[in-house]
């Protein structure tokens, strides 16, 4: 039974990825703007336009941009299947290489942020949800609520101005200063990472906190919690064995979604702190109309989302016997 569901979900995921590949192609191909302008650069383009417009057409042919849309789509599908994502219009470098390099740095920022926030938000939310209206709840909830009302880029900018520019505690931008090796470089990267990490952790913690708090405060009212207390379990055991276990399914689902979205999730923070990850890559690619780059980024992001959705399902399957037996009332 579970095996069949699993296979079904896997097939569904593949279908979703295929849809996204298709959508990717058409979404980006229907955007206005002449990609040739960005392939050869603005100055050169205007120059050629005057002196040798046929060269522009030649380039168009070289990149297959003069073929019919259907043909272009088939070519694109074939290439995607072979993991050939082509070269960047802008830098001419192989797209996959660039994307993987940038992905590494996004993950370097996003994984610690997600993990830290998962534990921090979870623990704090558990505490606040267990004692709603308590002193901790009253102090923490407004703080986290406020954080989630500030646009990410604004908070990031304020952090940048305050801690990096005015106080000078942190470097302005980038991943590392360059010219360093070994341990010194590691420290330097940590130093560069502190501010963007802090911003990401704050946001993720606040949303995790809210989720955990509301889940726990609902579970708290469940009869089985009273039962557990009536058995004489200590508070810690009630929380860990009964409350947390029941809160885990929705919480893990949400954390998995965060993991799934992490490739694009830190975009604004990356842009503000010039962190050379996927977010800045996408932004630059949008500005440069670097279609192959955009398509590859979108594809990877989507695969990541789909994969982690699958993982979330698996985790819930492991935690919740009701899901295991295919019943339709989770949550």
């Amino acid at each position, binding site marked *: 039974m579970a095996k069949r569901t699993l296979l079904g979900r896997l097939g569904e995921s593949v279908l979703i990825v295929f849809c996204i590949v298709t959508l990717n192609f058409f979404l980006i191909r229907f955007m206005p703007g002449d990609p040739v302008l960005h392939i050869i650069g603005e100055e050169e383009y205007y120059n050629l336009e005057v002196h040798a417009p046929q060269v522009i057409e030649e380039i168009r042919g070289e990149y297959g941009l003069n073929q019919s849309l259907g043909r272009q789509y088939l070519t694109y599908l074939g290439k995607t299947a072979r993991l050939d994502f082509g070269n960047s219009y802008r830098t001419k470098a192989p797209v996959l290489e660039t994307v993987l390099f940038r992905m590494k740095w996004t993950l370097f920022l996003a994984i610690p942020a997600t993990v830290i926030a998962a534990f921090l938000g979870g623990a704090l939310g558990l505490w606040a949800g267990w004692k709603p209206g308590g002193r901790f709840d009253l102090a923490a909830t407004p703080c986290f609520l406020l954080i989630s009302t500030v646009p990410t880029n604004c908070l990031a900018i304020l952090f940048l101005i305050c801690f990096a520019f005015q106080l000078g505690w942190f470097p302005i931008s980038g991943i590392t200063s360059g010219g360093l090796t070994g341990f010194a470089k590691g420290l330097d990267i940590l130093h560069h990472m502190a501010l963007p990490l802090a911003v990401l952790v704050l946001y993720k913690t606040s949303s995790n906190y809210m989720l955990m708090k509301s889940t726990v405060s609902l579970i708290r009212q469940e009869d089985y919690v009273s*039962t557990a207390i009536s058995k004489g379990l200590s508070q810690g055991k009630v929380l860990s064995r009964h409350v947390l276990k029941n809160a885990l399914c929705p919480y893990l689902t949400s954390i998995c979604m965060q993991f799934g979205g992490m490739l694009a999730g830190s975009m604004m923070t990356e842009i503000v702190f010039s962190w050379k990850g996927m977010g800045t890559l996408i932004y630059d690619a949008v500005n440069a109309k670097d279609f192959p780059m955009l398509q590859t980024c979108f594809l990877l992001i989507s695969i990541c989302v789909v994969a982690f959705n699958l993982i979330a399902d698996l985790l819930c399957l492991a935690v919740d016997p009701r899901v295991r037996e295919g019943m339709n009332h989770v949550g």
Partner: protein
Amino acid sequence: MLDIEHLSVRFGGASEAVSDISLSVGEKEKVVLVGETGSGKSVLLLAILQMLPASASVSGRALLDGTDLLTLSPREMNRIRGQRISYVPQGSGNGMNPLLSVGYQVGEPLMIHQNLSKKEALARAVAALRRFDFGQEEKLARQYPHTLSGGMRQRAMIAMGVAQGAPLLFADEPTKGLDGHRIELVVDAFRRLEDQAILCVTHDLRFAQEVAQQMAVLYASQQVEWCSKEAFFREPLHPYSQAMLAALPENGLQAETGFAPPREDSQLAGACRYYRRCPWKRSRCRENPPLFPVGDGRKVRCWNYGS
């Protein structure tokens, strides 16, 4: 062993959810509290176990073998719960954790209070289940609560309550939401608990008749009568008790007055809570009567029996 004296519970600034309840449960004695849904029966049990939210203020005393449970610290209370008093929640509700196996949950108190290993606790849980003749108890122990029927679940929870061997059992509406046949199974389960004292709240008079030795009647959060089962069914004193009995099918369903408590705002401040419905009401009843002792250990809250 348990003596409750003038116990009242109030939530925040609202009116009392439980008001002035006095009763006692002797060794191995079965006491049943009857009253309509919403009369505050369950709150009473939770109040004694100190399981109400912080917003509740509890007054009065609840002496367990001489110690007032209401004054114990949470840590001390943890040693009472499950060990001295076990609690059986409503089977129709979510009283069992959906994510843990039945066996684990039945055996859980043993792990805490007797430091048994999981395996030993499980074996004891199976033994406890066996007391109630489920059949295929090992399999049942491995099952999850959502696969059980309401009656099964209720009996499993009774097993959970007795597995540890606590001398006093609190049961909350054990027959709620069950059909006749399943009620019989639950009654049967209760009958097997000869060694335990039981304080059970229910709205089901038939169930009370099967199980109780002593009865307490609650009306609009207030205890109105306290007597033996026999006395109650033979000769109920309070008009509300009489109305309840009259409403039983074998007595002809004579319930034309309707006896659910009226809404709070339509009650007369300070008057007897049954004033609006009472066939005997007179001017004296504009003042709420205390519980009058009327001999044989019976008590009743009505001006007709005292002055």
